């Protein structure tokens, strides 16, 4: 990912900022220029909840370039109380303990590095819930 693109995506990747369409009320994540449901472009900021449920996952053993040394890793779909679903890496999880329906929560992690001299890209991932507070 280019440096400008990473920088532009910081609010959505690092603070999980989505858009809520003022016209139809749907939540758009990742943010888009127009609402993907009604086509309007009048939004307010919406922060994705910290906790959700894992509703599907894949264990990646044959990764794309740049992720070769991180296998096996898990990519999942998380559903939130309001019905919103997003995809994310699931971290700090023993792959033998993965379960559909398990509670997960946000955690700030490193996603990739552009080599030894490039930038480090951070984003929110999800992990099994640490503690119910």
């Amino acid at each position: 990912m280019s440096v400008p693109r990473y920088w532009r995506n910081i609010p959505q990747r690092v603070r999980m900022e989505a858009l809520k369409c003022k016209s139809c009320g749907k939540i758009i994540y990742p943010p888009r220029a127009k609402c993907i449901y009604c086509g309007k472009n009048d939004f307010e900021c919406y922060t994705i909840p910290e906790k959700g449920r894992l509703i599907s996952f894949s264990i990646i053993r044959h990764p794309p370039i740049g992720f070769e040394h991180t296998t096996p890793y898990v990519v999942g779909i998380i559903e939130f109380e309001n019905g919103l679903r997003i995809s994310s890496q699931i971290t700090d999880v023993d792959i033998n303990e993965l379960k559909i329906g398990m509670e997960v929560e946000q955690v700030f992690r490193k996603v990739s590095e552009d080599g030894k001299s490039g930038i480090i890209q951070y984003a929110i991932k999800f992990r099994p819930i640490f503690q119910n507070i």
Partner: protein
Amino acid sequence: MRPIIDVVISGWGSYIPIYRLPVEEVARIWGTSADHIKQELLIYEKSVAGIDEDVATIAVEAAKNSLKRSKINPNELGAVFVGTETKPYAVKPTGTIVAEAIGATPKILAADFEFACKAGTECLQCCIALVGSNMIKYGMAIGADVAEGAPADPLEYSAGSGGTAIIVGSKNYEKEPVALLEGSVSYVTDTPDFWRRPKESYPSHAEAFTGDPAYFRHTISAAKLLMEELGLRPSDFKYAIFHQPNGKFPLKAAKILGFTREQVEHGFIVPYIGNLYSGSSMTGFSAILDIAMPGDRILLVSYGSGAGSDAFSFIVQDGIITKRDNAPKVMDYIKKKRKIDYAIYCKIRGKI
């Protein structure tokens, strides 16, 4: 040192990675005696940062936990300082990564501090100064490291990962103060006991020179100076925390100063997670805040090679009761662990 305006702790939070490398695993690789190491260092296992963790990720998680307790709006922070000796970038501040992640940008001062293991409490001193001079409303001081010792070096048994964030504010603004600062001192000299040159991956140390002229001279002097300035004795404190490079040093320093084992044991975390470097004394302090009661007096003494110590005295306030359970405690993190072997350790720390 005392600020012009009374400074209080508004919130605190720690983060310790889930992975643990037992002393037995390191001893198995290098053919040493795990029992001997445990006896010498009083360390049983160390926390290890995951493959997707570094000082920035640890600092952000600790910062978020401190905000959950403080309950302030991140925009009220006037400074975010990260003390570490394992910055993800040689040039580019970790402080801006943290400030952005917690939603505290852009009207904020952000920087990284380095003073070996006392960089975190340096951040605390500076936040106290900024709040105490009314330049900012709240300041966040973070001490965090993903410490590593060279393979087969004694530090490989002890160098752990983790960190703590402390939010300080003015007593005039903070409605639920956690602890009131009574005073602090800093005591530094040019003592080359431990160092890391540019482009080197692992630190070097001067073996036994790290003891008397370095750790003990500075921690004991700083603690004595502070108690003299405040007119206090060891028996006036309910708890005391000293930097924990291993288990023996802090216990010996406490004994020399006249503190009992009971005063130091609640913040004594090194046997279970190792030396968190810049996060060490601050995470011990965090463990004390997790259990302290209003009226308790706490002594915090850091140590950083090179060398120096910061010492602080705090008196716990009523706000600690309502804020304590809003974030995971240090013991929660210590208990939630997954043991790894040396091969996985090498993989997740990029050694292979």
